[in-house]
């Protein structure tokens, strides 16, 4: 099996779709047509590949973690998306979308951000391509990820606080969608994960498939085969789907790791919000619940629709970890490997550390989706 083209209705099994205000339907349809044609165009692919290598620094390395492996009794490999330009996997998607936006004649990008990594990547691409950029960010997140707010501003983007609801990622998505409803003529909504209305879950997956494709080859060379387990943290699920896409046709177990306070797959039921049908944390009347996670990038009550599909057909499974387990994992990787992870991928480390006995002797590939610089101030408070 390979991850499928969701077709014109944007369905992954029963999940996905295009549940947007009527005003945005023509824009979503145009985006799908433009992406299809660009993705089949060697000139577009060549330009994106060149940016990914010359600007973003791809391919990202595969790192064998000897000391961590020894400590856990599990062989751990990291796919080093933290070494990309701007510090996370988010740049893969953003360069693709910004090139596409330019090809569609759009001059302005609007984005939502949680941890600020997608916002920084969007601001970076906008600076590179001479586009205007506005990033919506929950007020709570602007405080805990203040470093990234400053980076975005330095890059020339305008950062607008989302002040309603939980004042985190969910609310930033609402504000970005409201902005797009009003500006759809000249603006591209640069959505930061494999979520939202069709074609985003599919398009963003395709832009991140490079992670899995590289990792598959690197594992072939390094291991002479595939790892036993491939794991990644899941907020909307873009870094996870990126790496899963390289291994979905192998025997590797695919494990997504959600924060216990934002576990859409683990604790949600199917619902419709932000343009998609997917698992969603909600009450009995369909009101969306607020997520609570130490990690701003995973503090989201929903999940991308393809993860709901992979969970329902049993091709991937989803584990939950607590904030305390994440804090311990953040320190563990720093201490054993000299790699300070972002709090998001620290979730994946937290899971394999907790379940090390079940994983004993196996080889686990972890998507190290971002570096921890942005989280250091927050962790000084937590650990101080």
């Amino acid at each position, binding site marked *: 099996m390979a991850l499928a083209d969701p077709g014109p*209705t944007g369905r992954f099994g029963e999940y996905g779709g295009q549940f947007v205000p009527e005003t945005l*339907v023509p824009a979503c349809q145009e985006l799908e047509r433009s992406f299809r044609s660009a993705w089949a165009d060697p000139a577009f692919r060549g330009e994106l590949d060149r940016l990914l290598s010359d600007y973003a620094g791809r391919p990202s390395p595969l790192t064998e973690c000897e000391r961590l492996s020894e400590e856990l009794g599990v062989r751990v490999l990291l796919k080093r998306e933290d070494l990309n330009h701007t510090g996370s996997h988010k740049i893969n998607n953003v360069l693709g979308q910004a090139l596409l936006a330019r090809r569609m004649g759009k001059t302005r990008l609007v984005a939502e951000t949680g941890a600020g990594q997608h916002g920084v990547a969007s601001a970076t691409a906008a600076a590179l391509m001479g586009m205007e950029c506005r990033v919506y960010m929950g007020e709570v997140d602007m405080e805990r990820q203040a470093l990234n707010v400053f980076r975005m501003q330095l890059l020339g983007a305008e950062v607008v606080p989302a002040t309603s609801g939980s004042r985190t990622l969910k609310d930033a998505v609402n504000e970005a969608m409201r902005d797009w409803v009003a500006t759809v003529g000249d603006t591209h909504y640069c959505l930061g994960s494999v979520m939202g209305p069709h074609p985003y879950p599919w398009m963003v997956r395709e832009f991140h498939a490079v992670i899995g494709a590289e990792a598959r080859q690197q594992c072939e060379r390094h291991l002479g085969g595939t790892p036993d387990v491939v794991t990644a943290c899941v907020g909307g699920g873009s870094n996870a789907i990126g790496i899963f896409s390289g291994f979905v046709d192998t025997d590797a177990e695919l494990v997504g790791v959600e924060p216990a306070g934002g576990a859409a797959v683990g604790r949600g039921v199917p619902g419709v919000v*932000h343009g998609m049908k997917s698992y969603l944390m909600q009450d009995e009347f369909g009101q969306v619940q607020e997520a609570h996670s130490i990690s701003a990038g995973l503090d989201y009550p929903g999940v991308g629709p393809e993860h709901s599909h992979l969970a329902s057909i049993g091709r991937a499974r989803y584990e939950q970890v607590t904030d305390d387990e994440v804090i311990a994992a953040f320190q563990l990787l720093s201490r054993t490997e000299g790699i300070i992870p972002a709090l998001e991928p620290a979730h994946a480390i937290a899971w394999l550390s907790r379940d090390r006995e079940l994983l004993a002797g196996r080889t686990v590939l972890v998507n190290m989706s971002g570096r921890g610089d942005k989280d250091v101030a927050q962790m000084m408070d937590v650990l101080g």
Partner: protein
Amino acid sequence: MSDIPVAPAEPGALERTLRAGRDEGRKLLVPYLTGGLTVGGDHWLDVLSAVVDAGADAVEIGIPFSDPVMDGPIIQEASERALAQGATPLSILDEVRRADVGVPLAVMTYYNVAFRMGHERFASSLADAGVSAAILPDLPYEEVGPWAAAADAAGVETVLLAAPTAPDDRLPVVCARARGFVYAVGLLGVTGERTALAASSLEIASRLKAVTDKPVLVGVGISDAAQAAEVCAVADGVVVGSALVRRVLAGEGPAGAAAFIGGIRSALDA
């Protein structure tokens, strides 16, 4: 997309009322109120009666949703406050069932409220409460099939929105599936007050009038009597939401709501 049922030919209660008003040469006025919102002791049902007495042809009742992406700050605030006061779809519909309103009602909410309750159950609770129609602004034509099948079966009219961004060939398709009325989105943007009527309001109204015989009501951005009268040179009527809800939030109560809606009524009748 293949499984979108054809809309029943027979108009429902809302469409019949609006057509009858139009046939008498009347411009149609549909105020929007957030259900379940009590401000300063004024119960929302008293505001509802007041706007009906002031000349509403039908009323849209908002069932508040946690993430209203088509709504601006005013209706967001009203929704948050109503939810904080404990409003639920069932509590609001229960209150509606026991009220005697005298004009057709449409519920406006977001699709997840219907999806979570189940299409059949939500449609039949609307019908049981005496609600004629539903407006789900995040459920566009392509996705409407499963809901529309349940709503049609329960006798609930599904109003569809038509936006300025639609290409010409989309409008007749949307109008053919719309029941009750065609909700013309007056501008590019979310609900909220504007200082002047957007040119796009007149444009979308005339594009729709050219392709449908169903009542065409312009909503989103209609903020005062003058704007309502201006757009009704082309449209069959207006939906007025944020401008009314702002007054409710400010504590103006039934009297303030009646004065505001009565002023629009007079301007439309002039």
